């Protein structure tokens, strides 16, 4: 079995994070995609961003609240307050500004929710209009192409962030191809996003730095060019490493994505090993054991 040969018996260490799902719609798939792309920009890691966000999947008109083409986006932050602050800024600057767009809640609203439309409404300068249908309140803000519609309340849930696969390959091109195969396969898994560029991170990090004030620095053990200078985690013949970070609404979803991604990558030529990053089990409460999830999922 190829999987048995290249899967390292280790685990990914993941953390709880507050999550929300936003459904972005627009008159055409192009503008829904633009809204989602801009909303999820600069949202790779909470190490340096206010939130982690990514596209969950594209939505057909029949799947969206207003019957237009849409994109489902997931966003994660360390607390509900932090998530609300990030989303109010991001929806206000990136979605409200985007032609023909609207923004809808994609999770059940319970006690734990965030107020987004209710804070953006003030942009309407007194001409904003509230509409309530059932339990859902919309805010309609007049803008130059008509109006921007945003739900007031967005449900949140305690998600799981930081699931990861680390792919070790013989060279950059083949390792990247394996990572792309994993990303493509994970795209079919619901309730997860891959927040890094194209779903792939090349600058994996370790905690801390020799420089004061830096919370993270390059993952020296996985940097091929540092062989011989620091303790390396790379087997012989490995010349490139890519990491796929997985954030999800549930632990089960992250586990499923981990298994799907590992299977898709494992069959690619030039891949030497698949491993996961952790902190010895001391930091994150969720331990996603690679061999275990491959058996279960």
């Amino acid at each position: 079995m190829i999987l048995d040969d290249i899967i390292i018996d280790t685990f990914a260490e993941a953390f709880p994070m507050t999550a929300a799902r936003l459904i972005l719609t627009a008159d055409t798939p192009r503008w829904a995609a633009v809204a989602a792309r801009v909303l999820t920009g600069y949202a790779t890691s909470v190490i340096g961003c206010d939130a982690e966000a990514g596209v969950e999947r594209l939505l057909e008109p029949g799947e969206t609240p207003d019957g237009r083409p849409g994109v489902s986006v997931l966003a994660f932050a360390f607390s509900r307050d932090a998530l609300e602050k990030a989303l109010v800024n991001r929806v206000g600057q990136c979605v409200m500004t985007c032609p023909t767009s609207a923004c809808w809640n994609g999770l059940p609203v319970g006690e734990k929710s965030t107020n987004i439309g209710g804070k953006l409404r003030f942009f309407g300068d007194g001409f904003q209009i509230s509409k309530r249908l059932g339990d859902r309140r919309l805010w309609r803000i007049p803008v130059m192409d008509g109006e921007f519609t945003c739900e007031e309340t967005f449900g949140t849930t305690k998600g799981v962030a930081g699931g990861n696969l680390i792919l070790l390959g013989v060279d950059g091109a083949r390792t990247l191809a394996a990572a792309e195969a994993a990303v493509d396969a994970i795209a079919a898994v619901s309730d997860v996003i891959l927040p890094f560029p194209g779903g792939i991170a090349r600058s994996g990090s370790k905690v801390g730095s020799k420089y004061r004030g830096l919370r993270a620095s390059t993952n020296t053990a996985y940097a091929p060019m540092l062989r011989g200078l620091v303790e390396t985690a790379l087997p012989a013949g490995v010349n490139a490493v890519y990491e796929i970070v997985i954030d999800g609404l549930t632990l089960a979803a992250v586990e499923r994505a981990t298994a799907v991604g590992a299977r898709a990558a494992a069959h690619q030529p030039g891949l030497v090993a698949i491993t996961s990053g952790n902190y010895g089990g001391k930091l994150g409460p969720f331990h996603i054991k690679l061999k275990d999830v491959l058996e279960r999922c």
Partner: protein
Amino acid sequence: MTVDGSPLRPDVLCALALDEVARVRLTHGNRAAELGELFLVDRDGTDLDLIISGEMPHVHSIGAGTSAGRLRVEGDVGDEAGARMTGGSIEITGNAGSWAGAALRGGELRIRGNAGDGLGSAYDGDRVGMRGGFIRVDGDSGREIGLAMRRGLIVVSGDTGDLVGRGLVAGSIFVFGAVGRYTGVAMKRGTLALYGDVDADVSLPPTYVASGRAQPPFLRFYLKELAARGIVRAAEEIAAGRDLERYNGDLAEGGKGEIWLAGRGLGKP
């Protein structure tokens, strides 16, 4: 002879034993009668809380004030059906008289036939009418629907009379058929969405001003929700995908209300 049907509420009757239901007192003309004298009372295996059968255009206030439970009336009813409801649901398979759902606070009232005047309206002397809930009429309705409505939703699949949404404070009224004159007069805020063949020059007061054409996301959202509830005209409008013309008004009341016309709105300046 008229009958005050206000005790015919699912939240009241369903808490009683069958013999107690039969002894509930109703006002019948100018005297009292027991429910069992006027109705045949029985219990069956249906999952509905209360079913009332028969042609009862002389029985008024059926289901008025209902706060919970489900009532189905199989036939016509008199005035004020479901008035002042705060919750639960009432379905009338026939026609309803005037003031059906008047001063509604919550819950859902469905009239499969036609409704009379004052649907979901305020009572005389009240500053505010309907404050929540959902009224749905599959047929036509009379005049002055949604008078002074503050919150909630009224949907009429057929035609209506004059003065739709008079004095609306907020809330939404959807009409898929024709409307009469003076539509939205004295409206402060709120939304009228008119999908029938409506001529703005005839139906709207002169204190409305056209503000452009669009098919805004919130109307798409409403149509989708209404279609999901089985309102065929909403599904047809989704399929048609028409732009609507928006009018701001009533300018005599501040102009923050809106009327959306899918029909002939272009004649208005």
